[in-house]
């Protein structure tokens, strides 16, 4: 059976003024993919992510969610599309004036009819999924960087989004926590049919859980490879091989 496209990116160009960050990007994220956007530091991965989630309008090109043009639909429709997304920001993006429990509960109380008691139960479960059960009363400032990231993921998962977009999930985590996070991502895909977009340069995650990918090049400012990352290791492009083999190829 043909995989169903979930996100289609066509001729996308991202720029800051006259400075082109990435140009002519074309890729499709299918339902159930763990899609990796990879590349070296400064290649524009996070900028591309900002165009996917509605924070930065592309200089050119289109982003389609289930066939609907994200940047050219009515603002109300765009808000509805955004609600189907769960975003985990690179540094967690937690609201510092709220406790972890309140951070995860806020999307639930704003966008569902759930009773406060049930919201508390869901918050406890989501925090347990990321290994932070018992930290409900803590404020973000009382946590380490890695814990903030995991809490950011719990908040991103609060509404069981169709698409989970995760920016650099493993950086700053110890190997066991990073592995646990990767396992959770796979589990979310398998159990809840969540489509995952991972922005990362962590090879363990790229090769361990990625099912499809694009490689962004900082020099040419465009994508130079696409496909399953485990096959990209044998890519004809030496820059991709070099990256995926830690500079040994």
């Amino acid at each position, binding site marked *: 059976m043909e995989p169903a496209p979930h996100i289609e990116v066509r001729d996308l160009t991202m720029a800051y003024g006259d400075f082109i960050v990435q140009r002519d990007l074309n890729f499709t994220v299918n339902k159930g993919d763990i899609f990796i956007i990879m590349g070296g530091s400064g290649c524009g991965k996070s900028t591309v992510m900002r165009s996917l989630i509605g924070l930065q309008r592309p200089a050119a090109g289109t982003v389609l969610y289930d066939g609907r043009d994200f940047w050219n639909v009515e603002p109300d429709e765009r808000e509805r599309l955004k609600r189907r997304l769960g975003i985990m920001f690179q540094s967690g993006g937690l609201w*510092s*004036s709220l*406790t972890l429990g309140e951070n995860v509960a806020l999307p*639930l109380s704003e966008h*569902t*009819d*759930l*009773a406060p*008691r*049930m919201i508390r*139960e*869901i918050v*406890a*479960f*989501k*925090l*347990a*999924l*990321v*290994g*932070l*059960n*018992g*930290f409900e*009363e*803590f*404020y*973000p*400032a*009382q946590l380490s960087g890695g814990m903030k990231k995991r809490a950011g993921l719990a908040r991103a*998962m609060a*509404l*069981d989004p169709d698409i989970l977009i995760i920016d650099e999930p493993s950086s700053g985590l110890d190997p066991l926590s990073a592995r*646990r996070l990767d*396992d*959770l991502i796979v*589990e979310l895909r*398998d*159990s*809840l049919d969540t489509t995952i977009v991972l922005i990362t340069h962590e090879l363990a995650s790229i090769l361990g859980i990625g099912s499809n990918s694009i490689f962004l090049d900082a020099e040419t400012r465009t994508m130079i490879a696409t496909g399953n990352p485990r096959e990209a290791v044998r890519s004809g492009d030496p820059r991709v091989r070099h990256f995926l083999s830690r500079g040994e190829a």
Partner: protein
Amino acid sequence: MSSEQTRQQWRLETGPDSADTLEILFAGRWCLDQELPSVDVLRSALGSRPKRLTFRTDLSAWDTGLPAFLFSLIDLCGEMGIEVDQEGLPKGVRRLLAMAEAGRERKVSRAPSDRESLLARTGTATIRFLHGAPEMLHFLGEISLAFVRLLSGRAQFRWSDMWVEIEEVGPRALVIVSVISFLVGLILAYLGADQLRLVGAQIFIADLVAIGMVREVAALMTGIIIAGRTGSAFAAQLGTMQVNEEIDALRILGISPIDFLVLPRMLALLLMMPLLTLYSGFVGMLAGLLIASSIFDIGMFEYYNETVRALELKYFIVGLVKGTVYGAVVAYAGCLRGMQCGRSAVAVGEAATSAVVTAILMITISASILTIVFYQLGI
């Protein structure tokens, strides 16, 4: 027992599977887009104290609403000593529960609660104040030592930073200082005119405005404007640097944050405040002149002559000393609160607020002290 609601599409049924076993059926849609039950709905069923709990499902759809419910249920069963058999649950639910259970194993000491009694909060605030006083003195000492290092040429200080600060606290504050000083001069003129008209001495509006502005009001108003504008900015800048670990980085590299960050700000305000005070006094007197000549029919030249006659050098000295002292306390309060800032966005906001409150309190205290001192000196 059957618990079904018309608006919701979830269904939950319980019934004895055998004498010691309670079976729960989860059916329909268990998704977050509807009202889901909390685990409390099963408390009465579990009250019969079965030894074992088993599950059966007839689900049309589910999301994390179902495992979240089960997670709480397993927790409750643990407390009641009931064994839970997850065999009848969908595989995905079991896997998610297993991951959540792994996260549950961790024992955490709770974060200190904010909900303390009034007595406890009063005690905490008093202790914090008592601890705060030595901290404030310590910071004052550090600044004094930094000044000594600066004078002996040993301070880790960049003059370029000071020029940037001077531009920020001086020329960029002129508009707000002009507006406030003009309006205060206007108020003083009207206030004087109302009283002096009774004795036919309206010409003395010039004396009131000139002496009032130059000696007291210009310094006080400029101090308060600068406390709100610059003191809070200092606290927010230094507070954000604390959050971003920039100050830690300076310390690690052996660079004194007092020399590098506090000194340029202190010097900039110490240099600019006397000038802003003079400017404020001039604008206030100009407002008095315009009001007196246009509303109260006092000639401009007459007003000018009376102003020159009224003003003495000592009034300028008093005003400039007060302005300089207010500038010093604003810079001190802003930098102190910024350096004491915690490591969150909330803490930065608190530091900025605290800087303004501290600065205004210190301006008021120093104004009172200086007034008494100048009175005793006969100035």
